């Protein structure tokens, strides 16, 4: 993609890198080099296991960490040359929260709005409006320690939106919430984009969240982007159904791996212990034949599961590891 000067709400990053000085002068690489493009008004899910570099990348784009290398344009401002411009245009909702447990909500909302140049009155007005929109109406005198987990996450989003940013970073927005509260929050996030056109860049390690909420996914593993596209496209690229075979032991699974690898059309063959994962075109038709060949080779599986590919399979195929680990 051509390097644009960067429009409001968009992100363009090239070779964004973060290293730390480790012990004995060794360099510890947290993010190897990330290229990414986000268009205005998109909801992009940044997916990867814990420790993959999601939060580090997010913090670099939000000016909380200085990149060790690479360039980025965030909402029209150069990250290195104009971090203040970036700060004015983005909202950042951290995993850690945003308010003191014993502070009244409105006090935090007012102080937040004022730091973005709003008057106390305007901050209060927008705060009440946003709280209403995020189902927090009437709670402004409460303290955040008296809110439920879902309410607290929505409060963090109110704080991140008070200055009507063009682009919002959400770091693991639904971690620790029950399924109902998560679905409810997704609803709010989607509406935010639909009604205000806000670009949303969120990190998650939940497949269902990435699948149902994002327009497009970026998959990161070990500090590098390993896959990119819509969930449908990523799944289609797997070319086939997902097959999981369980063997009685590691040795049988190894034999199974050899057999499967020799099979016509089989792809993304990954073995973990005594379990074998692979993709097989027209799996339902091919499975009986495969099981017979496995039995002939002395490695009859003790379980077989065939499914349409999920994002978890995409992740497994891209990284050789399951996201659920």
């Amino acid at each position: 993609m051509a390097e644009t000067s960067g429009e409001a709400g968009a992100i363009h990053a090239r070779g964004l890198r973060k290293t730390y000085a480790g012990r004995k002068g060794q360099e510890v690489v947290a993010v190897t080099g990330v290229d990414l493009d986000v268009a205005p008004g998109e909801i992009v899910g940044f997916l990867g296991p814990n420790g993959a570099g999601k939060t580090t990348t997010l913090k670099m784009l939000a000016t909380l960490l200085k990149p060790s290398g690479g360039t980025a344009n965030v909402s029209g401002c150069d990250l290195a040359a104009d971090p203040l411009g970036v700060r004015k245009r983005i909202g950042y909702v951290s995993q850690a929260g945003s308010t003191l447990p014993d502070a009244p909500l409105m006090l935090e909302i007012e102080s937040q709005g004022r730091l973005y140049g709003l008057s106390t009155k305007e901050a209060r007005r927008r705060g009440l409006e946003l709280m209403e929109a995020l189902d927090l109406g009437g709670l402004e005198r409460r303290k955040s320690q008296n809110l439920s987990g879902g309410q607290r996450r929505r409060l963090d989003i109110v704080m991140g939106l008070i200055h009507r940013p063009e682009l919002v970073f959400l770091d693991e927005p639904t971690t620790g919430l029950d399924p109902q509260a998560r679905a409810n929050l997704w609803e709010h996030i989607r509406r935010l984009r639909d009604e205000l056109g806000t670009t949303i860049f969120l990190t998650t390690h939940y497949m269902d969240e990435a699948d149902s909420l994002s327009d497009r996914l970026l998959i990161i593993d070990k500090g590098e982007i390993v896959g990119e596209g819509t969930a449908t496209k990523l799944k289609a690229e797997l070319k086939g159904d997902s097959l999981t075979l369980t063997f009685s032991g590691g040795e049988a699974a190894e034999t199974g791996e050899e057999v499967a690898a020799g099979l016509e059309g089989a792809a993304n063959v990954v073995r973990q212990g005594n379990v074998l994962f692979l993709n097989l075109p027209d799996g339902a038709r091919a499975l009986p034949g495969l099981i017979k060949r496995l039995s002939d080779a002395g490695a009859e599986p003790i379980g077989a599961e065939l499914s349409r590919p999920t994002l978890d399979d995409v992740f497994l195929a891209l990284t050789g590891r399951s996201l659920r680990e």
Partner: protein
Amino acid sequence: MFWRDTWTIFRRQMILSLRNPAWVLIGLLQPIMYLTLFGPLLEQVASVPGFPPGDSWKIFVPGLLVQLGIFGGFFVGFAVIAEWRAGVVDRMLVSPAPRGALILGRVLRDVVSLTVQGAVLMAAATLFGLAVPLYVMGLGLLLVALLGGAFSAFSYAAGLALKSEDSFAPLINMFALPVLLLSGILLPMSLAPRWLQVLSDINPFKHVVDGLRAVFLGDILSMTAAFGFGLALALMVLGLWVGARVFSGQVK
């Protein structure tokens, strides 16, 4: 921008503190407790040879004011660790607010609260028998404000740099005892052996205490007084500089 954001932070901290009745009550009772617990002891100590000459209250109250400034500021670092853990520090760092305003607003809250405590202390001391002109009291409060500001800034800086109560608490303890003993606030250093006196001379707070005592005893234009106030001012400037550095250094 800078002053507006400083005011925003100051206002938030102040409202948070005033909403806490325990904070207000302890803040007001503490100086009075110092006086009632130490006062009776003082009358005995004042007759010991080697105690600085002059009215014992004029020796004792400046010491307490310096102690108030130092120790009042010492512990605020715990609060910034709690704020960091709650995500408040990151939330403010990602805003366009100047980093200096984030610390100065916090320091000013502590300066105001310590100055009020200092005023309560001197009002109570007057009832006990301290007799000094009003402008001397004003200078006393100025010194409390300078020292309190310096230590609160250092404490925020240390708290945010360490981010752990378990490392911050021992650090405070390591500094508190030598500073207190070697400043001659509680016991006159003239009673100390030679080597301890030398150590005490190196301790800047001894000179701050001496300076304020000179003011209370009427030597306002003396070198001792100027040196004490100058040191306090320098500490405050240094503290704010270090504090602003640590706040902006969070983004690295």
